[in-house]
């Protein structure tokens, strides 16, 4: 199971733009991006899934800083309901079949 937010395309796009803007504002290359994944099957089919597990909070992103150290992080997470709004989904519901192999 993987943890993340369920949302719609418009909100996902806004989150992605916010992540880009946070990097642009600091004059750094865009080394991070929010990954919006269509839910292809299961009870949440049709939604957009933004993966965000607890391990992401432990990664050092830039110059010793974790995601929680960036002011924009709290604002973006609040847009999609806060960390407690996350759900777990089965990864098979977001996996594209590998027809070529």
């Amino acid at each position, binding site marked *: 199971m993987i943890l993340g937010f369920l949302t719609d395309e418009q909100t996902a796009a806004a989150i992605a733009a916010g992540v880009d803007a946070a990097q642009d504002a600091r004059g750094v290359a865009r080394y*991070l991006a929010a990954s919006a994944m269509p839910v292809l099957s299961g009870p949440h089919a049709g939604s957009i899934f933004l993966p965000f597990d607890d391990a992401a909070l432990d990664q050092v992103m830039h*110059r010793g800083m974790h995601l929680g150290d960036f002011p924009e992080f709290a604002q973006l997470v609040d847009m999609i309901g806060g960390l407690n709004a996350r759900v777990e989904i089965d990864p098979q519901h977001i996996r*594209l079949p590998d027809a070529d192999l």
Partner: protein
Amino acid sequence: MNIFRPPFAGMWAPPVDSLDADAAAYIAAVETAKGSAVTSTQRDAINAFVVGEKSASRWDSIKRLYLPIWGVAAANAICMRSLTSGTFTVSGVTHAAGYVQGNGSTGRMDLDAGASPATAGYSTSDCHMAAVIYQADSRTDSRYIGGQALGGTAFDIAFASATEVRFDPQGSNASVNPVVAFRNGIFVGASNSTSYRVLGRRGAGTAYAEATRTESANVAFSDISPSMAARYIIPSVIQGYSDARIGGFSIGNYLDPSAYSMSLKELWETCTGLTLP
């Protein structure tokens, strides 16, 4: 960093150490992104690698080279060759000492737009893709070490089965692409014509194995940039996420798999203190 010895008897002494300009630029970029210095061992290893690749006339064949060993996303995303940045997914990638590891479901790095075939200058008949695999994917179904695909064409290195890795430098006809019976080590897939494709694998010590295919295969790459730890198709539709531990990744023009894999081995092992399995 140049250290000048004090002058004596009217003579200026030469610098006791100096770095290749490209090596120095990459090191500076990594140190800025990390917020701390690399070690002297890492500095010397990176310099030796760059100098060696230039001496062997392989440096210009490398279009993108990532050494994601720094434990910091921003540093791991920096290309040693171009100083451009790849883009990691916010979630799903562990940035460890010596490698990055995707979660096998949602974590990957997308190469920049300039890494596409037409812009970077590589093609089906003149290409390479290489990866340092410290630990293979934990699953036995098809997973991608890296690559791209669209409309029946492909450019990737894949865990093809429970025992094999395959290099795909053309269309989806996998039967004409070289396969080696290993899942960890340093893999270098390369093609220098429409009738020659090679996949080399370097392991511990001097272990090296190679497979070639010479059937005619000339399906041009789609002009999209590849990803690492997955195969990029189009935004939001990505295939075969891998949870392998990846210590290096490069793409570009044809180069000799045996020699290049040895250089990568020395670079990665010296910088990380780890040993290839």
